[in-house]
């Protein structure tokens, strides 16, 4: 199945996806969009894991993706909880406005 496309193509696609996510994380100021960019980067890592699991014939790569998904879900839950409690206090805050600790 992977013979025609080649693992290298999948890895290059994952590299491009990771770079787009990293660029967005640096550029965007809305904390919600920054979280979405983190999800993009996690998905690039997942794509790499599955591609190499298929190439090397090792099921451990797919198990790693399972754990990445669980950790991503926990990270999003906690991150959005923090975000809700911040934005409730000061609506419309961007990442630049959160540089001070005063509540």
């Amino acid at each position, binding site marked *: 199945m992977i013979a025609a496309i080649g693992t*290298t193509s999948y890895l290059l696609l994952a590299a491009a*996806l990771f770079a787009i996510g990293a*660029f967005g994380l640096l550029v965007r100021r809305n904390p919600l969009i920054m979280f979405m960019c983190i999800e993009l980067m996690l998905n690039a890592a997942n794509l790499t894991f599955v591609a190499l699991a298929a190439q*090397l014939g*090792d099921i*451990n790569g*797919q198990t790693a993706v399972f754990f990445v*998904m669980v950790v*991503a879900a926990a990270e999003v839950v906690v991150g959005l909880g923090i975000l809700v*409690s911040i934005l409730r206090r000061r609506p419309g805050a961007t990442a630049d406005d959160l540089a001070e600790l005063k509540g």
Partner: protein
Amino acid sequence: MNDATFLEYVVFFSAAVMILGGAIGVITLKNPVHAALGLVLTLFGVAVQFVAMEANFLAAVQVIVYAGAIVVLFLFVIMLLGVDESIDLSIEPIPIQRPLAAVMGVGLVGLLGAAIVRAQDALVINPGSGIDTAQTTANNDANIQQLAANLYGDHVFAFQLTSVLLIVAVVGTVLLTRKWPRNTPSTESSDA
């Protein structure tokens, strides 16, 4: 090029267009709701690539957990906070941030691409015990059975730790977002 090979190329490139288009949508669209929909497009593209690589269970989990739960959580927070108005993207607080970030992104792709292309021959050095697929074992549940045996065998301790992680995340979120009652002066004086 026979029909099956052609079909593989069609699937790969259409899913790649979905992934990269959705990702560019996430970082360029002004409205956070539209960005979340771009994220859905990317996640579905990744699920298609998982199916193409015979990771059927992970493709299902990708759609259910990521596109189903996580994106809904994003949309829920967007609607709850009322931040679904468009953002002015022309504001650039740090003057040369965007060119520098673009240089970083291109450099990252260049470095990773060079490493991937150079390491092409190393990909066959240490082959594992093989992944069961429906074709190789004549069993339609081969992927999920092999994954379950690996997860509940070799990685059972890590699996139990993830349940602890999820409990901590849920309790922590409840504590973080709860509105604590403000201490009135009378209770504070009674404490003192």
